[in-house]
């Protein structure tokens, strides 16, 4: 983060925190909370954002000593945020805590209408936006945590393979293979819905 001349850099604050000044971490929290919440809200349900963002800062604090000055702090904390979201879905996938979102015939009818409409105006009203969000949640719920994360990062956010690999801590080849498979699964899900 680019700070003014009077403001200490992230590295200075980290040094203070490591030196025992725990309260100094609050500056880090204030500086980076918007970025973290912005990442987290895209990957986890709305009501879980605060809890997951909380977890991100706790993890960042606990591993602060491993932060290397070679990378920028915002990139480092972004990777922690993405991995916390991935862990959220892995945990949920294992425990099957929540019932999967379901679609009604109304959704199917809406989707067919969108497909038949050759114009691109099908998404303009609020009802359509809500339906599209529910459709997305339905499709993502049917993917594994790995497929979900890679699909969101690569196709929905438009990040590069390398960037995604850095954020998830995977190899670039793994990201490429997984993202192709995940996209194919998404297309199959959509086709199954429309063609049913």
């Amino acid at each position, binding site marked *: 983060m680019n700070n003014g001349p009077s403001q200490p850099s992230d590295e200075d604050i980290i040094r203070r925190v490591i030196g025992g000044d725990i309260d100094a971490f609050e500056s880090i*929290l204030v500086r980076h*909370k918007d970025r973290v919440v912005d990442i987290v809200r895209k990957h986890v349900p709305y009501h879980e954002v605060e809890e997951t963002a909380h977890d991100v800062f706790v993890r960042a604090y606990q591993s602060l000593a491993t932060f290397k000055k070679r990378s920028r702090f915002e990139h480092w904390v972004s990777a922690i945020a993405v991995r916390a979201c991935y862990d959220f879905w892995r945990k949920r996938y294992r425990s099957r805590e929540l019932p999967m979102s379901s679609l009604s015939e109304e959704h199917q009818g809406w989707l067919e209408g969108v497909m038949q409409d050759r114009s691109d105006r099908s998404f303009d009203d609020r009802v359509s936006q809500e339906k599209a969000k529910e459709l997305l949640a339905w499709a993502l719920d049917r993917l594994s945590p790995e497929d979900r994360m890679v699909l969101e990062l690569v196709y929905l956010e438009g990040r590069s393979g390398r960037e995604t690999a850095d954020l998830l801590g995977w190899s670039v080849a793994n990201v490429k293979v997984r993202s192709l498979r995940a996209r194919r699964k998404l297309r199959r899900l959509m086709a199954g819905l429309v063609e049913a």
Partner: protein
Amino acid sequence: MKLFKRDHTKLENLLIRAYHERERPDVDELWQMRVMSHIRSLGPVRSGRGYITLFEQSVWRLAPMTGLLILILVGLLLTLDFMPDYEMAKILIDDPVEFTVLQWFGV
């Protein structure tokens, strides 16, 4: 209804828009206080890397060499035609010191 490539593209664009339209909750000061209170309860950050971390790092550094060593040993055993049963019997039969080996096994 059959979906074609352009339909998939249209659908994907729709989902991308839906993805970016997701709501953003505002984290308030109370949230910030909760996080800081949690962090204070954890105590100071340990600046040095713990012994366990150092041990884990050393283990992973040694892993490729260990793997290579295992491969070499397996290769050697295969080329030397090593048969443990035969070798053991040979030691017992050729034992120059009377029954020493048998005594080791408590026989």
